[in-house]
């Protein structure tokens, strides 16, 4: 009988088709895009292979490295059983005295002591002030930590389970937990006057007591979700939205002060948090443009088209505005020069690798982790990459 044979052939044909769909169009695995932090001549960054590394900023030598336990998760698609993958890190390390704090995509916050790590002692060394906190919800995938905030004696952590946690900085004890959203929280809270402000994917800005985690009376609701972490400047919150606008919301107000662009929306989302300096908001957009906007009125002062998506937040160093686009070109605008007011970069420096991570700048140098898992140190005066180091450990 031919019909069953044909059906059988169809079944056989179906399998590779679906397999192809898994490979070419399914979910991209979480690789992470940890940002860089510099403290006392050491660069701290999370790597693609799930490690936190400390690199000497003068020599480029590895000071220490700590491998986070890999994630074990049920596989999807046609593979059976469990798979093991390096722990993704999206969070930027926060350094406070001799401790490096970092949140991981498998729902942990780690406090790493520099001395203990340089001696490669087992983790955590409590006598050195090390601790590890695991998000207390069962499904580790839903606890991913993408951003956090360190203030005084507490760390505030946003989790993919929709909760904000406050942890004691010294011991990692949980002070409070606040369930604010049914959606994942991938944005970092911001603090002002003992109040935390959190922007959510379901389009809210919530105000929480930093002391207790209780929701305060004021919240703001937008029609679309918020894509970026909020930034606060003179009691106004600036935040990017999935509806392709940047919003300015005065704390306590139910209506936005303005939204940018004023007429039709931008070409894509304002994914990266903007920065505000001397009354001007600098915002990078996934449409490849950098916008300078009057903070009070929302009027555009200038724009610059980088041509590639801007994923990382801009950084200010003295009078220099530093922007990277996703293709790995660093644009430096000298805000004291006349050209900057026309949106013309003073320096354009390609590093030769894609960039999605947040980056930092200090003393004329910009520290960038590329998607190729290399650390690039860009010398602005020199106008090029001063040195780079491969963050992947050779087996």
């Amino acid at each position, binding site marked *: 009988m031919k*019909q069953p044979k044909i059906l059988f052939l169809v079944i056989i044909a179906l399998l590779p088709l679906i397999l192809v*769909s898994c490979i070419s169009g399914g979910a991209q695995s979480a690789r992470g895009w940890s940002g860089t932090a510099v403290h006392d001549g050491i660069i701290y960054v999370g790597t693609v292979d799930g490690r936190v590394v400390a690199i000497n900023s003068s020599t480029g030598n590895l000071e220490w490295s700590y491998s986070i336990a890999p994630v074990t998760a049920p596989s999807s698609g046609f593979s059976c059983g469990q798979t093991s993958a390096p722990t993704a890190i999206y969070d930027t390390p926060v350094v406070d005295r001799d401790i490096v704090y970092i949140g991981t995509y498998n729902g942990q916050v780690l406090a790493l002591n520099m001395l203990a790590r340089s001696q490669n002692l087992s983790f955590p060394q409590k006598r050195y002030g090390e601790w590890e906190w695991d998000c207390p919800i069962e499904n580790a995938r839903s606890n991913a930590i*993408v951003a956090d905030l360190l203030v005084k004696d507490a760390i505030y952590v946003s989790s993919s389970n929709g909760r904000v946690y406050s942890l004691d900085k010294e011991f990692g004890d949980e002070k409070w937990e606040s369930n604010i959203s049914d959606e994942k929280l991938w944005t970092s809270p911001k603090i002002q006057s003992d109040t935390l402000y959190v922007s959510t994917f379901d389009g809210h800005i919530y105000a929480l007591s930093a002391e207790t985690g209780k929701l305060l009376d004021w919240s703001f609701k937008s029609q679309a979700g918020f894509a970026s972490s909020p930034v606060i400047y003179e009691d106004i919150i600036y935040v990017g939205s999935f509806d*392709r606008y940047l919003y300015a919301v005065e704390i306590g107000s139910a209506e936005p002060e303005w939204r940018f662009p004023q007429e039709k929306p931008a070409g894509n989302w304002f*994914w990266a948090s903007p920065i505000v300096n001397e009354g001007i908001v600098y915002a990078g957009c996934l449409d490849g443009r950098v916008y300078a906007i009057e903070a009070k009125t929302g009027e555009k002062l200038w724009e610059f088209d980088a041509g590639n998506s801007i994923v990382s937040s801009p950084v200010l160093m003295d009078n220099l505005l530093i922007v990277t686009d996703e293709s790995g070109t660093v644009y430096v605008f000298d805000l004291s020069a006349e050209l900057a007011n026309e949106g013309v970069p003073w320096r354009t420096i390609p590093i030769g690798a894609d960039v999605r991570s947040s980056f930092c700048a200090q003393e004329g140098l910009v520290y960038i982790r590329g998607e190729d898992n290399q650390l690039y140190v860009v010398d602005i005066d020199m106008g090029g990459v001063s040195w780079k180091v491969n963050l992947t450990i050779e087996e």
Partner: protein
Amino acid sequence: MSFLDVWYLIIGNPVLNVLIALSHLLSGSFGLAIIALTIIVRLISWPLTKRQLNSSRALQDMQPKIQELQKKYGKNKQKLQQEMTKLYKEAGINPLGCLWPMLVQFPIWIALYQAIMRAMATTPENLLDLAQRLYSWDIVNQAIPLSSKFLWLDLGQPDPYFILAIIVGGTMWIQQKMTQAPAVDPRQASTSRMMLLMMPLMFGFLTLMFPSGLALYWAVSNIIGIITQYFVTGGWGYLKFRSPSQST
């Protein structure tokens, strides 16, 4: 332009954007959007489905003649095949016509799988990638990000309770049983029975492996198929039919 670029331009991105737009129209429910898309796909493929159902109905009507031929030429398979082909030709039936609606749906399945994984944005990389694939329609951008919750399901993950696997397998079995003509020859009957079980089992298994959003599409598609078959062919078809080998 590579094959993948063409694929996303013509099928992948339109399915993704339509799905997200439907989700916004249906109170932000991605599950309802998948159901609505299933209905749209079934409506688009209706001419093919109708042809398939008509073939199925004609095959059903021809059963006495087919059984007669099977009895007459049961031992001479080549002759039986020739006579069957002649019979189909005379009646203007293509017995493989039932495969076309399924083949048409293959690209939709793949696009839907990709759309679900992308729209659910289970990782920050996926969410960033999604930004590059969305149209500038307000209705699409206001729907982002989507909620993956629907009934007991997380549409981006397989159903952990096996309920959807049973529904997908069960409805597929019923749908196939309604159209698959029983064979007289015991060996053929055994092959038919195996095939009747194989597809539902395979799709039940796939349901355990793939996001439940895709399985929801399969389940709804099967249910619509059963309903349309019931009304077009005027009943449960071969579901209530006892093959001669069973009756003897």
